[in-house]
């Protein structure tokens, strides 16, 4: 599973950071930093899915084998 964030949409809400801090964080200026590759760990995947659902501007999409999930 890979994370894609549409940086044109992202408004630094931080909901993804709260849900899955292993994969989302901010730099000093509130720009979002993303660790895109998600390991095959179900707990981590659940947190990443939660992060995608919590984003108020729906900037986070998840892809498996190159397709939207």
């Amino acid at each position: 599973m890979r994370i894609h964030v549409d940086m044109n949409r992202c408004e630094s809400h931080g909901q993804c950071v709260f849900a899955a801090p292993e994969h989302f964080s901010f730099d000093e200026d509130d720009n979002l930093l993303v660790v895109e590759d998600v390991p095959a760990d179900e707990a981590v995947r659940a947190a990443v899915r939660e992060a995608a659902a919590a984003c108020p501007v729906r900037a986070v999409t998840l892809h498996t084998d190159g397709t939207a999930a």
Partner: protein
Amino acid sequence: MSPRHIVVVGASLAGTGTARALREQGFDGRLTLVGDEPHPPYDRPPLSKQLLAGEREIGDIALPPTDGLGIELRTGAAATALRLADRTLALADGSRLDWDALVVATGAAARPWPAPVPGGVHTLRTLDDARALRRELAAEGARLLVVGAGFLGSEAAATAAELGVPVTLVEAEELPMARGIGTVAGGFVARLHREAGVELRTGTTLRSFTGAGRVTGAVLEDGTHVPATAVLLALGAVPGTAWLRGSGLLLDGAVVCDEHGRALAEDGTVVPDVLAVGDASRRPHPLTDGTLHLGHWSAAVEHAAVAARVLLHPAGAGELPEPPVAVPSFWSDQYGVRFRSLGLPHLADEARTVEYDVPGRRLEVTYHRDGELVGVLTANRTRRLAAYRPRLADAFRHRRAAAAAL
């Protein structure tokens, strides 16, 4: 066994979220989503921001579609009465729906002025409201009067000011947004308004409108007249639960629920198979004795996920799992400044300022009650906000455990 026919009333954030979550969690029975608005479901926060500014239209703010999920979506259909005894729902067109489980997701409506108003006086809750107000702002010589400087009035005033429209913002309290986020942050917001040229009139309220047929302004309690071509009443929201009066559900404005979102009856017991989510519901929180009404976007999303789990909890599987402790979050965008909050700042008895930098557009305030952290607000400092999240979750969990042990 899960219910055969689930009816969700209210087709916006909480309602569509519940319906989608039910399908995602494997519900394969009949699912009906009933909403009184004529539009496909859309998201509200942009209405006072990008949509009012003319930067976005309905296509940009649509909620994730429910098509292809086997959901019967009935738009333009208002629910008028709920009957628990024979499990039916009456609709305004005279038809009736039978249900095995029902979810109340009818949100809230703008608090109206208590008397008839002239033309040009608006509220802001729906897409049609936002479009109507946008037309007013685009007119030659537009002047806007906003009554109420809560987050919604404050955002609308900011959007109008950025469009170059002269704005007067009237607030009964001494500072904007102070009831929600306190005087330090309220003072910060006041500075932003004044720098942008908004005439902020605090400590006064609106007495009456002027203009016959079409508004020309308003007279304030202090006797002054404010000229305006349009007025926005931003007086807060009232839960959309009038249609539930007499149904037997316990109402305190919103539907009173347990921590799972299950509706309570007037005698305080759980009503089987009836839930309420989003702005139409109130539920317990470790920081209050009674129940809390939030009216936040994130709460509606969280409620929807929990509701689907509760509805699909197998009958023989024992007690419902305890829902995750809620750390409420809220945001507001004004003048390009991103206000983000966590927890419950409005319940604090003390605010501590960590950073207050108006020129740098940065703010960090923590909120405490009896010395204990209960909330935090930042402006353009979401990175710092994130660090408080686990601390707040721990504090709330601790409180819940302590209350359960009593």
